[in-house]
């Protein structure tokens, strides 16, 4: 059952910012995540602020520098089927296409995808866990098959988004508008590790709205993909995955973005792997070496050590696919 809340539908971003600055206000983009959270009592809402009236936040358009601006309200389906994205930034198109199900992709937005709450079943269920302000993280001693092998401390969620890792790999930025004005930051900086604050996933302050995602112009010889491993064919979050954004020049990797998904509380960039790849020709040996390096330092919990070989396998396969 949904709680009772006030519903507002502002027409401008500044109205939205104002409405969202109120205590207990929640932004509603596609609502595919928000409504589930409210219905399941994960958190409450005093008011729900629909973003659907903000036409400025819709649509995909080229930027002057040859990049792309994607409004936060653009649906995942639109991102997935946009021919320009599929060509210039394939990891993002594939990430959007790998999320959820067709119905959810038609309704869910890119902004909502980045700001969605975690899927940890204790968080979503009837458990007063640390992320909800409780004392303990139930995953530590409990059912942690789907939890983090990197970056956990006090809380071991994995970031649920399938577009976040591609965006980090692509070095995308987001624009955020809030009571104090607008700011831009790399997608990588949007997310918060539990060691910093285990009660939130993004740095967004009350009243702040994510308005757009900016993709830098594609590099020469750009290649990329998103590989997601899941338990069933659709309607399922990543058990592990990897986003690759490479550029290849003269047969050698010129630049590399390598970001894991489904393994850490944030998209998990592996700079060592990126470094390893640059300047080398991508072949089976390098792919195997890179895959090994990608899972180095993993700290599996009692029930998720499978993620180490799984992610390693996914990285190796993904790199070979681009070789």
């Amino acid at each position, binding site marked *: 059952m949904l709680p009772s809340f006030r519903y507002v539908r502002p027409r401008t971003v500044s109205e939205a910012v104002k409405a969202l600055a109120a205590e207990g206000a929640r932004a509603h983009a596609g609502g595919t995540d928000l409504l589930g959270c409210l219905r399941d009592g994960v958190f409450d809402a005093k008011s729900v602020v629909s973003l659907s009236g903000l036409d400025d936040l819709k649509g995909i358009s080229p930027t002057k520098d040859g990049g792309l601006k994607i409004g936060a309200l653009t649906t995942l389906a639109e991102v997935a089927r946009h021919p320009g994205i599929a060509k210039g930034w394939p990891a993002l198109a594939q990430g959007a296409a790998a999320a959820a199900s067709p119905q959810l992709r038609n309704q869910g937005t890119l902004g909502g995808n980045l700001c969605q709450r975690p899927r940890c079943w*204790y968080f979503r269920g009837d458990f007063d866990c640390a992320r909800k302000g409780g004392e303990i993280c139930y995953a530590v001693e*409990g059912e942690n098959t789907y939890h983090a092998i990197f970056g956990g401390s006090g809380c071991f969620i994995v970031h649920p988004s399938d577009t976040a890792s591609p965006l980090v790999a692509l070095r995308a930025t987001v624009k955020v508008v809030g009571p104090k004005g607008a700011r831009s930051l790399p997608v990588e900086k949007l997310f918060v590790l539990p060691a910093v604050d285990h009660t939130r996933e993004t740095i967004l302050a009350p009243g702040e709205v994510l308005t757009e995602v900016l993709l830098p112009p594609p590099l020469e010889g750009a290649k990329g993909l998103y590989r997601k*491993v899941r338990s069933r*064919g*659709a*309607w399922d979050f990543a058990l592990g995955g990897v986003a690759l954004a490479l550029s290849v020049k003269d047969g050698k990797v010129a630049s590399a973005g390598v970001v894991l998904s489904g393994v850490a509380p944030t998209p998990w960039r592996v700079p060592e792997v990126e470094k390893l790849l640059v300047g080398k020709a991508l072949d089976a040996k390098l792919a195997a070496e890179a895959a090994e390096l990608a899972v180095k330092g993993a700290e599996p919990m009692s029930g998720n050590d499978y993620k180490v070989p799984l992610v390693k*396998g996914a990285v190796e396969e993904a790199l070979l696919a681009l070789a």
Partner: protein
Amino acid sequence: MTDLLYWLQGPVPETEPPTAEMPPWGETKVVGKPVPRVDAYERVSGSAVYPLDFALPDMLHAAILRSPHAHARVKAIDTSAAEKMPGVRAILTAFSPGADVPWYRSRGRFYSKLFDERVRHEGDEVAAVAAETRAQAFDALKAIRVEYEEFAFVLDPRESLAPDAPLVHDGGNRYGEPARYERGDLAAGFAAADAVVEATYSTACEIHAPMEVHGSVAKWDGNRLTIWDSTQGVFVVQQMVAGALKLPLANVRVIGHYMGGGFGSKLEAGKYTVIAALLAKTTARPVKLFLTREEVFLNAGNRPANTMKVKIGAKKDGALTAIEFSSIGSGGAYPNGADTSFLATDLYTCPNVAAVDENVAINAGRARAMRAPGFPQGAWALEQAMDELALKLGMDPVALRLANVPKVSQRRGNLPYTSTGLAECLRDGAKAFGWETTRAAKKDDGPIRKGYGVAAGMWGYGGGPPARVVVKLFADGSVNVNAGAADIGTGTKTVMAQTVAEELGVPLEKIRIEHADTGTTQYSGPSGGSKTVPSDMPAARAAAVEVRTKLLAGAAEELKVPAAELKLEGADVVSTKDPAKKLAVTEVPALQRNQVIVGVGTRGPNVEGKVISMFAAHFAEVEVNVRTGEVSVTKLVAAQDSARVMNRLTFECQVQGGLVMGLGLGRTEERVLDRQTGKMVNANWHDYKIPTALDVPVAQEVLSAELVDTECNTAGAKGVGEPATIPTAAAIANAVRDAVGLRVHDSPITPPKLAALLAAAGKKG
């Protein structure tokens, strides 16, 4: 076992002889044809009113407060704040008058109450509210204050009998003594074997998860109660409600026209049914009480998890010499069946067999029969063990099974089957699948490995009495069929209309089925156990034959020829000797005088000295990614022996549905209980993973052995719903073994499990 028998092994009830003599059908005109559902339009257009859609003027909405703890005692309940909430009309707790109703009966005693002060699993009922709106009812639940004293709990059946295990019930954690079965000399059998395999297998607990949640609408007229229920059997609900409320059966009318799936979880009245009735009585208003999806996951039944140990021995030629099988499972916090040994004792010829089934209590939701209860679990263990045996013997797995096809049911007094298609299923399935050629062409390299697997199964319940159907032929030639059976989505109404059309020659559009209403239709047992076609169609046929006999007799009088000379042809009665002698059905004076001709058909007893069983062999092709542990099932072939196929379309629907459910058991479905709290962490559609369209292979083939069985019943058809899901998961497991050389003993076969196993085995692409 509980008293709610689904898998009937006891004596057949006393029955009247069938009302009409019926030779087996030869060639049929309507039966067997791929006829679309008679209610297809209603179902797809949304005009069919399911119980969940049902609304009455002035109706209240109810909701149930459930224990958040796995095991606790309710020390105090304070409903005062909730009572004052807007719209709240009644609150029921253990202390409310009339609510002291015993519940969960098994082996002659009750294990709990409608609201028990001791709650034994998360989701056990604590209180209920009726309010003007559903939202108000749920708001009120939140305002009820309950004080619990928490107890230690046990979740794993394998730990339930440990000396220090918490007691779920004060008498101990065993539901009855272990059920033992033995024949021959096990030790001698193993001594004579050339090869022996032994391993432990387990299946995860599955939830039925029907599309329509469980629930009822209750309405009183004085001391007479009417219930609209989403149920597989209106008469079972009538009996349980009448018993609980101490009402005469005649005062309880249960109606269940449409229902959105049950899979065995709706073979009984729920507590929700009785709670709705009590709230309706208290408020003097109709009350609607449907569970939420989460409640269905927690407390509307499950297929229990089972751990099974199998040891099999065979001679070099594949002849089985001994089978030892032991199983432990749990009916849950309250008794229900959890036995799995039947297949191991009856599917294959084997002289020396010992089996034992243990059923213990745990602090988790109570099991309910789930599509072939016990059998997919038993097949998971037995059929993987057979596969191992084939490997050890160096035999083709199909050949090994064919070498052990029994002619008689060893578990049931060595009685012969009315028909047995196990060998046909194996042979036809292998042929359609391309078993030999694909296996021969298999390559064992690269990161994606293909594998092929087979498994067989049987279902040993052929239906039976009591079942009664009334057919009315009206003066205009249209027909009304009155039958108590529920159509649980399998196509019962359609097949029944075909049966009657076959005998009366009336077009399907002129037949209307009145069904599943204890007030107006004839008694039938619940639709479960794959028994509805074999139980109710013979009764429908008998009723139609009686109508025809009366009609021909009436026509004979008018045409002045012996009735034996007459036949029905379309809308006419015609003489077989002189085609000029004919009379329109509607002109038969006996029909005109009475405006109706009525035929009553009953289901006669089953044939003596024989047993009725259905058989199946499933074949699976999988692709495993050895880097990531991903498994995709790329092809399934199901070969079924259900004797006559009553309707090719509904038959295929049943088999395809069975395959998908089997795929769920084998690949994706698993109830997960948190070891710290005993609470279910995946009580939702997303975390409890039912296969999606993308998990079900496009390449699916359904075969029928089409055996002629004139003895199983007068329709010549055995059931299909359950045998269609029994071997699927095991066939998939065997295919995975074939693909990567590793066996996953515990269902489901997920990337997490397989990635870990592959890594441990050092498998690489």
